[in-house]
């Protein structure tokens, strides 16, 4: 069963009638353990695509399946819970919960996904230890940027998701930390057999991913929609 399967998916902003922007994905499949880099500049629709995959936006047509489940067929709390259990997201600015400790940030993911209470602390501690976080009870505000990034990765993988979405995961890091973070993210996804869809406009990233796609033709208004196809450039 593919970790991610998108078919004939189209999206346009209905509240802006004069906006000709349209995102269309004819077909995209990621098997468990697959890793795909989507290179894109600003305003090209990469965030829209990630929001569609995460079920935070609804497409006008087509299907997006995660681990065999059409996420848009689910409604309300069921979709939220499904997202929490099957999707891990790493944000550009980490989006850690301020005022929470490192372990609480990871446990929050398990809590919101309704994982058993007895599993939360051991699972969070295991992940943080494996990522070299030596002070799991320190507030995330007190951690270095590199450590914060690792906590964000641990949180994304806490629920053993089928798919990990990484939105510009290295944009806030210096080259050394960026390389370390990507090593970590890619190796952990492999280790957990989770598919990884990484969106970045960092040219250095392309060396890391044997599979790459671009969205650069997608961004501007008035330009023809671009169809993404599996396995390479459109």
């Amino acid at each position: 069963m593919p970790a991610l399967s998108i078919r004939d998916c189209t999206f346009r902003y209905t509240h802006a009638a004069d906006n000709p922007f349209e995102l269309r994905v004819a077909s995209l499949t990621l098997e468990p353990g697959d890793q795909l880099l989507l290179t894109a500049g600003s305003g090209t629709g990469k965030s829209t695509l990630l929001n569609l995959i995460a079920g935070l936006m609804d497409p006008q047509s087509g299907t997006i399946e995660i681990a065999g489940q059409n996420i848009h067929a689910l409604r309300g709390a069921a979709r939220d819970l499904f997202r929490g259990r099957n999707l891990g997201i790493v944000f550009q600015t980490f989006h850690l919960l301020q005022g929470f400790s490192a372990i609480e940030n990871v446990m929050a993911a398990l809590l919101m996904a309704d994982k058993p209470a007895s599993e939360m602390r051991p699972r969070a501690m295991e992940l943080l230890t494996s990522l070299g976080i030596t002070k799991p009870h320190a507030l995330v505000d007190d951690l270095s940027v590199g450590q914060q990034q690792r906590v964000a990765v641990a949180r994304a993988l806490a629920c053993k998701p089928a798919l990990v979405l990484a939105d510009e995961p290295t944009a806030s890091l210096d080259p050394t930390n960026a390389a370390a973070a990507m090593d970590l993210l890619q190796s952990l996804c492999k280790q957990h057999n989770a598919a990884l869809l990484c969106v970045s406009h960092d040219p250095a990233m392309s060396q890391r991913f044997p599979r790459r796609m671009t969205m650069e033709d997608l961004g501007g208004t008035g330009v023809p929609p671009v169809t993404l196809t599996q396995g390479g450039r459109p």
Partner: protein
Amino acid sequence: MTDFTIVLRSLRARAFSTIITILSVAIAVMLILSLLTLRNSGKAAFERGSGDMHLLITAEDSPLVSVLNSVFYANAPRRPVTWTKYQQIAAQAPWAYTVPTAIGDSYRGFPVVATTTDMFTKFVPAADAPWKLSEGAYFAEGDAGNWQAVLGSTVAQTTGLKIGDTIYLAHGYNPRATKPGSPDPAANNEHAHDDHDHDHADHDDYDADHEAESTTAVHVHREFPTKVVGILAPTATPHDRAIFTNLESTWIKHAKDIRARLNPPQDAPATSADLRESERLITGIYTRLVTRPGSDAPANLPQVFDTLRRDGSLTVAQPKQETDTLFGSIIDPINRIFVAIAVVVLITSGIGIMLALYNSMEQRRRQIAVLRVLGASASRIFNLVITECAVIGVAGALLGTAITLLGTRLAAFTIMTRYGVVIEPTLSPIIIIYLIVATILLAILAGLIPAIMAYRTSVARSLRPTA
């Protein structure tokens, strides 16, 4: 980790705002509880003053005024009752006691109550506080008790008088003009009798005589040194502020004044045997009817009350009823205004909760969006925000209640040690529970708008790096 941990962490992350909001709720709760506590304590104090008497008989203008003047010593009574009338009344019904009182003199702002020893042996000032001497003895019966005084506990505490001390009582009592405990006027006030042009031809001038004295400087009876023979234990009633003497010495004292102003002046009486009928005046009678054991409501009370009221020269009051009237018609509306103000303060603090959360919503949108991405449903987020408000409400209500209970007890202890007045801060646990529940509900209500905002937070928009 539970959802409640998320709530607590969220409150901790905004610690300053959270503490200020909780304090504002606590102050509102404190204000309401303090007003209710004081109101209940005030009413209880008023109910204590009349003790176990059933009827108060005076010649005052109204029953309420007679209770205020003869039980709570608000002012000197204006009209006297003759001793003959007292004797008629005493023989008129099956009384358990009839205690005569004559109020009109004072000492350093404290009222002097001339009475008989029945005051101490029969009248009970409060059910839980019968008369008890902390030192000395009551004044003696008849003329043997002349120029002897028994001090209420507050008087002793405030003035520092001790057994054996000599005091000079003053003619006239006006609590508005003389603050209790003010310096002894005998030390520097030689108020000359000649300053007054009194005509004491008949007892109707009891009123004019005391009124004239009470609205101007007091006239000190330096010729009648009075010895302190007893000090009463506190009763937490207005009587703690009174000085008790026998009737005979009061009558002799005033007869001397009256006779000195006659033309030609006449000799002062030496003992009560020398007193004329017109010189034997009292201002009130504390009465209690005989009751069955264990009962406080005599069956013949309405009948005796009606019979006495038919006498146009008398005013008959049921003190407990008058206290209820006073609270119902005057004090309750004022209290309602205070409680209304306190409720407005509580509502204002509710608005404060709403504003605190509303203002924090902008910075919390991202946190809410992250929780949504992690799997929290919109309704779960709504519940988290409402729970935050409830926590603020609970914390504020409990803090306010604790401060009020501690504060009122501390105040009661201070008042008791400094002034000897026993005030028992009383508040029904039911009222406390109602107030806490109301505060929590108000806090939840205040959280509805921020919670709806949280519920409707756009996750995609809130997670944009530029958002």
